[in-house]
């Protein structure tokens, strides 16, 4: 437990953690509410209903397969990779904890961080939707508790998977800059190129997509939100299998990262 407390303390007092959270909230509110509200009534309007309280779960988690997920990946990289950048692995490990106990504490910290992030996204989305409903004079029709919990669970699972990928990349590449760069290239460029260009042309790429983390994260979120215009949210597979694949990736990323950290020298 003391390793978890120590890791949490590092992130709670780190300005970058709160900056990432703020960006996630601002980005979600901007693109799920402010811009669509400003453009409502236009030719490509999302429709006001998506911005009302009944749709706040969808609005808050729709960005997690791609853009907000990228922030979760950066958070994961920072949690593990900064120890290489600042050469603090030696300082921490000389205090006696085993590598795996520190690593486990880092994964818990990433999970706590993504928990807080998804919670904040939902809270701010709910508040914003309530404001819009108030302005438009619409009724405050909130989704059921089960729907909220289901949306929260899916969002937490997806963001934690991206966070775990960030941790793995940080350990694999022993740093911060390259893992963030490569992680973002994968999430924001390669995934989009695969789905928008390669998959329609090559059937095996279309099939391969069904086994990749991004499309499964998008499918899981799509299963909760229904049809959605958000990038990366597409029902390639159904919700149950998508949740299993995302969980499998989370476990695989965590396992490989721990194995690498345990066997490699801390130079």
């Amino acid at each position, binding site marked *: 437990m003391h390793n978890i407390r120590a890791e949490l303390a590092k992130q709670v007092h780190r300005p970058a953690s709160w900056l990432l959270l703020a960006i996630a909230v601002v980005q979600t509110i901007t693109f799920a509410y402010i811009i669509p509200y400003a453009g409502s009534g236009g030719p490509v309007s999302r429709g006001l209903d998506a911005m009302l309280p009944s749709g706040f779960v969808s609005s808050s988690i729709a960005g997690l397969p791609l853009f907000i997920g990228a922030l979760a990946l950066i958070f994961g990289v920072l949690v593990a990779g900064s120890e290489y950048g600042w050469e603090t692995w030696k300082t921490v490990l000389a205090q*006696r904890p085993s590598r795996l106990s520190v690593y486990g504490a880092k994964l818990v910290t990433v999970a706590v961080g993504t928990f807080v992030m998804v919670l904040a996204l939902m809270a701010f989305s709910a508040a914003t939707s309530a404001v819009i409903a108030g302005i438009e004079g619409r009724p405050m029709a909130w989704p059921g508790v089960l729907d909220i919990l289901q949306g929260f669970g899916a969002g937490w699972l997806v963001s934690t998977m991206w966070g775990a990928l960030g941790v793995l990349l940080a350990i694999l590449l022993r740093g911060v800059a390259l893992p963030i760069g490569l992680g973002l290239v994968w999430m924001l460029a390669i995934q989009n190129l695969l789905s928008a260009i390669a998959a329609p042309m090559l059937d095996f790429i279309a099939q391969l997509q069904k086994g990749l983390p991004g499309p499964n994260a998008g499918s899981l979120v799509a299963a909760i939100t229904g049809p959605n215009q958000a990038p990366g949210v597409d029902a390639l597979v159904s919700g149950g299998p998508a949740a299993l694949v995302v969980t499998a990736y989370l476990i695989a990323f965590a396992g490989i990262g721990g194995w690498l950290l345990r066997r490699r020298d801390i130079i």
Partner: protein
Amino acid sequence: MNPIETDNLTKHFGTTKAVEKVSLTVRPGEVYGFLGPNGAGKTTTLRMLLGLIRPTSGRLRVLGQEPGPGFLDRVGALIEGPAFYPYLSGRRNLRVLAGHAGVALSRVDEVLDVVDLTERADSRYSTYSLGMKQRLGLAAALLKNPRLLILDEPTNGLDPAGMADMRVTIRKLAADGCTVLLSSHLLAEVEQICDRVGVISRGSLVAETTVAELRAGGTLRVVGAPLDRARSVLTSMIGVHKVIVDGDHLDLEVTPADAARINAELVGSGVEVSELRWREPDFEQTFLQLTGGHHA
């Protein structure tokens, strides 16, 4: 039980032999100086002792335990310069590390006091001078109230006063029963505070001895006239191999106790002796001989 024992400790990075069959012993309560030129394998050896680097072969025991759970329970270390979280204060850094170490937070204030950093403890680490960072590194090493301290170049970056303070602190810790393994490239530092010395060169331990033994082998310098007569007298007195002619003087490989007898013999033989002086050995020269001429 010796606090540190290594047996043929070896580490290869690919084809590079960083450490080759190092067998060293650090005894309880001593300050052991680990001396060697840059790149000789000091830090790699220390990292192996802390379990940060896995040996290619050989064995090591730290406080009687082989690397594994709990083997660093009573070991404090500062390896290759201090490394902390720049956005946290010194105190918060130590609190985080105390959390990892599983020690009471009250210990943080104690170690800050030991290294005289209490006044600046709440400033961000990134604002610390190199000397303050080094002292915080020592504070972190002391968190577990260690029986064994492993310090890698602990006076690096300190001003002369800071170096003197650090040496006093290390000697005090040793006097309190803490064993210290100290790597340094500063010969004078090792000479001043260490009891025994291990000299490493190109990955191999080339000498393990006491500082006193490393200093042994001084010479008696004789300046007299005529020098040829002095040389002739001394050669027949102590042997040709123990008389070294160096310009206008002679260096004799004898002991300080021989000085009076030699003086009497020279004066009795008509040599005017103008100087008769015992010269301590040149520590640096000894080090260079041991390491094959590689500078520290």
